[in-house]
């Protein structure tokens, strides 16, 4: 179905594409990545250290004085050990038309909503490409038609979302996965239309002085599934993803007051068990020019709350994030982000590091890592308790 919907939107996109278009431009990157794990795997089928390569070219062209454009961004990854992580996707394939008080976009796209750093509750349009990164920041392209109305009272975005994308999960050989593994081949849906259910969404966003505000609504297939115990065709235990039909309201707020950014995100979701509320709120305080240098130090703290507590599908039910962001503001754009999420109920800790630096004009080196500390066998994250890792990535941009 996805293929058909995509094809439909693709054809529609081609119709809008003028025969006499200007030559477009190519950009993108190719990247190699090496992951080293601190411990041997919990499951003998899983691998130790891992090598992987990815590429994401981008083609862009515009016409009509820049008021119309066409963008294609394919993505491909090859993974040494995990067949599920070796995958390809169309991140973007969009036609855009911008007018004075509206913008229309048709095709496959990525949309981001929200303001917080530790998790993105409000952000719901795109499915998470979980094999790409455990932090959930990587997304699959979503087919859509999006009309934005741009008025004095803010921007109202209306979305029709045909073609659901299932969440990606590491395969049986992959690390950083649930235990038992998630069997995506047996995915189940509440809707009789399964992945063909058409979802709808809307978002109003505005800013007033120091305040940026967004109010959103979503009606359709939940991007995060519930998990049902089952067995695969080899008779081994697996979790089967189940996608409910949900309705979700979201609110995101940011106040930018001098060196302080105050952030708030909340959702109310119904249709996935009992209706519930979850929120993330906190601040980022930046010390500009620490110790007379040109470096900035940001201190981030956020509270993560989910009304469902231990029943939540997220490991972040009642947690606190403390993080520091060091930005050197140097020629190589060197950055470090070190953060720890504390479970307020027990001793579980999630430590994460992200740092990057440009090398020369076109290369970038990234060091990332996560440590899973004091994770017990009963926790949602128990599958990753032996998967603390460091990852070195080298990317060539063109």
């Amino acid at each position, binding site marked *: 179905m996805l293929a058909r919907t995509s094809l439909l939107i693709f054809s529609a996109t081609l119709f809008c594409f003028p025969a006499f278009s200007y030559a477009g431009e190519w950009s993108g990157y190719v990247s190699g990545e090496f992951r080293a794990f601190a411990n041997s795997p919990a499951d003998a089928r899983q691998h130790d250290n891992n090598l992987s390569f990815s590429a994401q070219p981008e083609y862009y062209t515009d016409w009509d004085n820049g008021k119309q454009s066409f963008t294609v961004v394919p993505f491909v990854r090859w993974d040494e050990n995990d067949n599920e992580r070796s995958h390809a996707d169309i991140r973007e394939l969009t036609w855009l038309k911008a007018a004075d008080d509206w913008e229309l976009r048709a095709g496959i796209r990525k949309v981001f909503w929200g303001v917080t750093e530790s998790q993105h509750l409000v952000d719901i349009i795109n499915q998470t490409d979980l094999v790409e990164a455990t932090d959930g920041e990587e997304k699959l392209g979503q087919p859509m038609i999006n009309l934005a109305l741009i008025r004095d009272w803010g921007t109202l975005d209306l979305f029709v979302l045909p073609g659901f994308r299932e969440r990606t999960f590491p395969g049986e050989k992959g690390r950083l996965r649930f235990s038992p593994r998630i069997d995506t081949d047996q995915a189940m849906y509440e809707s009789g239309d399964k992945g063909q259910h058409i979802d709808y969404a809307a978002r109003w966003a505005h800013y007033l002085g120091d305040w940026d505000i967004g109010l959103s609504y979503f009606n359709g297939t939940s991007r995060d599934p519930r998990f049902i115990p089952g067995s695969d065709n080899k008779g081994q235990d697996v979790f089967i993803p189940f996608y409910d039909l949900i309705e979700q309201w979201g609110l995101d707020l940011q106040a930018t007051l001098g060196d302080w950014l105050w952030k708030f995100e909340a959702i109310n979701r119904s249709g996935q068990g009992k209706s519930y509320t979850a929120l993330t709120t906190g601040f980022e305080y930046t010390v500009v020019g620490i110790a007379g240098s040109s470096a900035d130090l940001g201190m981030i703290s956020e509270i993560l709350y989910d009304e469902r507590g231990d029943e939540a599908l997220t490991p972040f039910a009642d947690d606190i994030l403390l993080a520091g962001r060091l930005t050197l503001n140097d*020629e190589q754009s060197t950055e470090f982000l070190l953060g720890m999420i504390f479970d307020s109920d027990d001793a579980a800790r999630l430590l994460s590091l992200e740092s990057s630096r440009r090398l020369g004009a*076109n290369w970038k080196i990234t060091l990332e890592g996560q440590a899973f500390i004091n994770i017990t066998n009963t926790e949602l994250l128990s599958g990753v308790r032996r998967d603390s890792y460091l990852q070195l990535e080298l990317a060539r941009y063109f």
Partner: protein
Amino acid sequence: MHNFSLNIKHIGLLVLASMPLLAAAETPEEKGLAIAIEVDKRDTGWQDQTATLEMVLRNRHGQESKRNIRTKTLEVDGDGDKALSIFDSPRDIKGTAFLSYTHALVPDEQWLYLPALKRVKRISSNNKSGPFMGSEFSFEDLSSQEVEKYSYKYLRTEKIDGREAFVVERKPAYKYSGYTRLVTWVDTEMYQPLKIEFYDRKKALLKTLTYSGYQQYEGQFWRSTNMSVVNHLTKKSTDLHWKDYRFKTGLTDRDFDRNSLKRAR
């Protein structure tokens, strides 16, 4: 939007300015302010401007790195300009866009668009003194120069590189400036800066910025082709090479909103 209406603040300043020009006995402060107002007045009415910019960063060993940026600016009557900068290189930040609504005395509003995440981030504008893209230019050096941002004192008139210039001392009136004072050489014909010396919070000479290759556009507006800044403490330098200046291209507020950030190219 860009009509001929002047706000009260501007009229007040113009009245203030034109009187001392006529009066014989003006104080150095009055003369300094009058020059600043004339600079502002002569550079009013360009409506909007687009240009491309090559930034060359040089470290103390002479090693270079480059950034390519396109800029769009909208003149706003009675307030600071709206500006959009789009990065073409280095390639890892290609498509990153920076939107700012500058103001004279209240903090600017700034948003950053991160194309990899498709995320528009409102950012704090208190980093005025911070380096722009790792260069020797700070955000405040590159933001629009409103009259109200400084207090002024005329020092002298002297020749610099064969051109007659007013030497005017400016002291930032806004919080978070990285400078205690700036000494500016203003060309007496073009009413454009030829050189600026920046003094840091310890009152030591921090940087010298020189302008060259001025060209006139639309029969009125002077723009320099090259701006070169040297940091005397770090011995690093940054050159800006401006190209393809265009004026009155028909840009509106709509080209400077958060939606336009997401499709900036």
